[in-house]
């Protein structure tokens, strides 16, 4: 077949396109993913019951700040990475800032405490629950992010997959923070940070399979 024949066919009945569609789809995936994750935590795990104490509120806000900033930067970058060539406009440094900040705070907090407390500060009381819950809660937000990415055209599938995983891990952490009563910075750095990184790696591995077009 001649290319000009194909072009003639494609140029019949050309419809205007919606230039905002990519961002809207990503936004929709983000909102629905967050809702699903929050409802899952509220129904499945329940909100932490000590939210009347100021200390619990402060730690909840700190966890939310970490999770929200991660999910926020990641979704802005995801909206770039799903457009052809957009992977070049992603700064890994900016994505790493929330992680670097929480690790720094964790190190300071460990440094101030006697080393006999370190075990308890890092492991908390529910490290296993945290380690399992965040990836499981992230499944639906991840599927939605992949759905949104597939409606566009990422040209670097590893990066687009990794960012989908990062968004999902961030969103899932936002929801899990509502339940989690382990209030120490090293705990958040290791178990929140670590599982979000795990979600990101999973996304990077699955990206080339799920996002090919």
């Amino acid at each position, binding site marked *: 077949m001649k290319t000009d024949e194909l*072009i003639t066919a494609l140029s019949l009945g050309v*419809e205007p396109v919606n230039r905002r569609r990519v961002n809207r789809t990503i936004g929709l995936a983000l909102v629905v993913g967050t809702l699903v994750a929050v409802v899952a935590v509220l129904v499945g795990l329940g909100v932490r019951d000590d939210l009347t104490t100021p200390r619990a509120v402060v730690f909840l806000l700190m966890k939310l700040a970490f999770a929200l900033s991660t999910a926020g930067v990641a979704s802005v970058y995801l909206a770039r990475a799903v*457009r052809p060539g957009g992977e070049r406009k992603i700064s890994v440094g900016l994505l790493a800032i929330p992680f670097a900040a929480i690790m720094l705070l964790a190190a300071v907090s460990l440094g101030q405490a006697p080393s006999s407390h370190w075990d308890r500060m890092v492991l908390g009381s529910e490290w296993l629950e945290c380690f399992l819950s965040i990836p499981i809660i992230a499944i639906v937000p991840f599927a939605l992010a992949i759905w949104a990415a597939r409606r566009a055209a990422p040209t670097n599938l590893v990066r687009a997959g990794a960012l989908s995983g990062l968004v999902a891990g961030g969103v899932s952490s936002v929801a899990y923070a509502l339940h989690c009563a382990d209030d120490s910075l090293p705990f958040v750095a290791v178990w929140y940070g670590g599982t979000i990184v795990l979600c990101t790696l999973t996304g990077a591995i699955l990206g080339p399979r799920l996002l090919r*077009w």
Partner: protein
Amino acid sequence: MLGANAEFRSNFQAGRNRIDRVNEYQHKTGPFPIEEELKALMLASQDGDADAHQRLLKRLSRHLRAYYKGKLIRVGRGATEAEDLVQEAVLAIHIQRHTYNPEEPLTPWVHAIARYKLIDFLRRTRASVADVPIDEANEITAHDDHLSAESSFDVLKLLNRLPEKMQCAIQAVKIDGLSVAEAARRCGISESGVKVSVHRGLKALARVIAQRTGT
């Protein structure tokens, strides 16, 4: 010794003069006249201007042909395979034109699609991806080639692999040139159903082509 030095100086000066002339030209026309022109066509195409869309695809197909011929010759592939890739890329540009952000230059967007399709092609035809040469975005519009070959597939014949509704919608709108309303009547679906079927059908067609050239 002195003579060689004088010759060098005069060559050097001639080189400087040439660079000055190029700079002067670029100053008058803007650094990338092709970029400006193609971008204007793309913006019109996004707004639904069929004529601009056709001119854009024709112009881009010539750049894509030169690009793919140049890349494939290095891995020992021929003009037919280059034409297959040109058509895959043209189809992809058509389907994905909503992903172009008007705040960005067009050339890197086209280049990213062209390169993605090249790597995908080399991967599924089991060539080493290490063969993919490093290239720059402006390489995509560096050359122009209108000597088109026939591709190894006929997009329209591949239509019959699609579900009936998509076939009918694409046949009506893209081949017989009916309006969306007429197509809706012929295929017995709603007007928005026609638009969705055409869009999904072309995406499905692109997948069929990608799988076909793999075997």
